[in-house]
């Protein structure tokens, strides 16, 4: 077990040199019933930490980003060596990377509405200074295009918002990953998927893969979330590309509002991101199999969803008061069917909230009360008095998004671990239309009409 990286990140994030006086032991000693005599055997190290330790970090690394260089017998050879260098410096993700050359970064920066030196913030927990250029470097490495940059920058701004909890969620063993929901016309303009397979790769709508991958590279390389060193994410699912998708606003039934309007109050048509930390992705089969009436079909599916949400695995604690217990993804055809039966976004949330409450006896059986007692939020601590316990303080906390393929068989539930749902409005450069025209030129028929 190596917690040293997490500790160094935390210290660095405070503006100290990334170093600290530490005495470390294998994980076994931290488990119930362990032999703790090694503490006694190594007491001198504790004493030295208080009296003799000195930081070995000699340099102040602040300043302009440095350039790396490789030489190869051919372009192919140089590219291979560049990828080897990125991996050996622990800056890769195991998939091929585009080296962020000046030319490629400058091209990517055509999507920026802010100067390249503009500081967005410090990426937690390591505290790496994150500029517009830093984002462009990551997007270039991830294979992204300039028109994706406004989405990435808005996502990074949301991520760096201290309310997001990212400083702790980056390091925690639960391995939450950012989910970026995009609203506004930019989604279709840049070919971001809102339909079939929207949480995975799609060559017809490829934007989400490289935006999410770039965000992940920033989390690791600038934020220090290196598996087993800077992040204790035990399993680390969805961490190649995170999840970046668009709501299918065109498919919203009459009277339903875009997610960004409901959650953040942005006017419909505003280009925006909404960032949630999720710790799981689950398919919930909702459709009937025989002769159900339309009403039975909908209600059965809603019960399956609520029953799934009613689980005492404690994931909902983080977002109890102001965050969310999760994101329910409803496909367009199901949203339409439900709306035709009079369901609204509000009534869906109300149903799920009422019917996902967990009996206190079930929480006690799972040992949950201790986690309530140590929760930082007094509202969450107090909520243990509710029996049954609602998985969110109010129904409005549940995120509903209309997205996915136009098919009725499944819901999708992104279990959250998210103290807030953070929104940001995007900025696009004045030349954005030109970037879209370039994309049509480079990638063929544009927008949603591109069907191979």
């Amino acid at each position, binding site marked *: 077990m190596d917690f040293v990286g997490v500790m160094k990140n935390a210290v660095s994030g405070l503006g100290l040199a990334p170093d600290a006086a530490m005495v470390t032991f294998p994980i076994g000693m931290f488990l119930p019933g362990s032999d703790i005599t090694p503490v006694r055997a190594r007491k001198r190290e504790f004493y030295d930490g208080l009296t*003799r330790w000195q930081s070995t970090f000699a340099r102040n690394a602040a300043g302009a980003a440095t350039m790396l260089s490789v030489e190869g017998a051919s372009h192919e050879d140089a590219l291979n060596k560049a990828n080897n260098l990125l991996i050996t410096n622990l800056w890769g993700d195991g998939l091929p990377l585009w080296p962020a050359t000046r030319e490629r970064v400058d091209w990517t920066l055509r999507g920026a509405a802010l100067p390249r030196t503009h500081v967005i913030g410090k990426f937690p927990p390591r505290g790496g200074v994150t500029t517009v250029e830093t984002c462009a470097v990551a997007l270039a490495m991830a294979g992204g295009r300039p028109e994706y940059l406004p989405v990435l920058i808005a996502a990074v701004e949301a991520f760096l918002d201290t309310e997001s909890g990212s400083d702790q969620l980056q390091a925690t063993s639960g391995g939450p990953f950012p989910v970026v929901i995009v609203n506004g016309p930019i989604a279709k303009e840049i070919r971001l998927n809102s339909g079939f397979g929207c949480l995975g790769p799609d060559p017809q709508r490829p934007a989400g893969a490289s935006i999410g991958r770039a965000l992940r590279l920033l989390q690791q390389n600038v934020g220090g979330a290196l598996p087993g060193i800077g992040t204790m994410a035990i399993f680390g699912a969805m961490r190649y590309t995170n999840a970046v998708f668009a709501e299918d606003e065109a498919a919203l039934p009459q009277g339903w509002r875009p997610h960004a309007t409901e959650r953040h109050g942005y006017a419909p048509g505003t280009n925006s991101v909404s960032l949630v930390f999720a710790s799981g992705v689950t398919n919930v089969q909702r459709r009937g199999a025989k002769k159900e009436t339309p009403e039975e079909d909908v209600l059965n599916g809603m019960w399956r969803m609520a029953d799934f949400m009613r689980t005492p695995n404690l994931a909902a604690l983080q977002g109890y008061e102001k965050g969310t217990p999760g994101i329910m993804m409803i496909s367009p055809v199901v949203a339409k069917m439900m709306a035709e039966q009079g369901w609204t976004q509000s009534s869906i949330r109300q149903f799920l909230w009422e019917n996902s409450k967990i009996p206190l006896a079930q929480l006690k059986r799972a040992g949950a009360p201790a986690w309530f007692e140590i929760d930082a939020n007094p509202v969450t601590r107090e909520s243990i008095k509710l029996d049954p316990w609602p998985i969110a303080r109010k129904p409005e906390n549940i995120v509903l998004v209309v997205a996915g393929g136009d098919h009725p068989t499944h819901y999708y539930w992104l279990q959250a671990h998210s103290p807030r749902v953070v929104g940001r409005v995007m900025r696009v450069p004045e030349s954005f239309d030109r970037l879209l025209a370039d994309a049509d030129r480079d990638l063929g028929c544009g927008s949603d009409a591109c069907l191979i």
Partner: protein
Amino acid sequence: MVTLEFYDPSGTLEVTQQHAPRLASLEGRRIGFVSNEQWQAYRMLPMLKEMLEADFPGVEVLPVDTFPQGNALIGNEETAALVKNSGVDAVIIANAA
């Protein structure tokens, strides 16, 4: 020969404050604990207190629960102020795993 030059993707760090200077000796000092109460801290920290008191004449090691405990509290400004105002010469922070 082809040369490929590209950006270091790790960003830059900005050191804005120095680590606290170390103590010349532990004798006669006041030592505190800031604990998250997890990972067997309830067993390890009392052991450390006992060892420090046995090995250094005049050292005062405050009880483990002198300052607020738990992940939710140990990182906040109020706890930091309590530690600072208590007059301790050093603190040991534990446990992480």
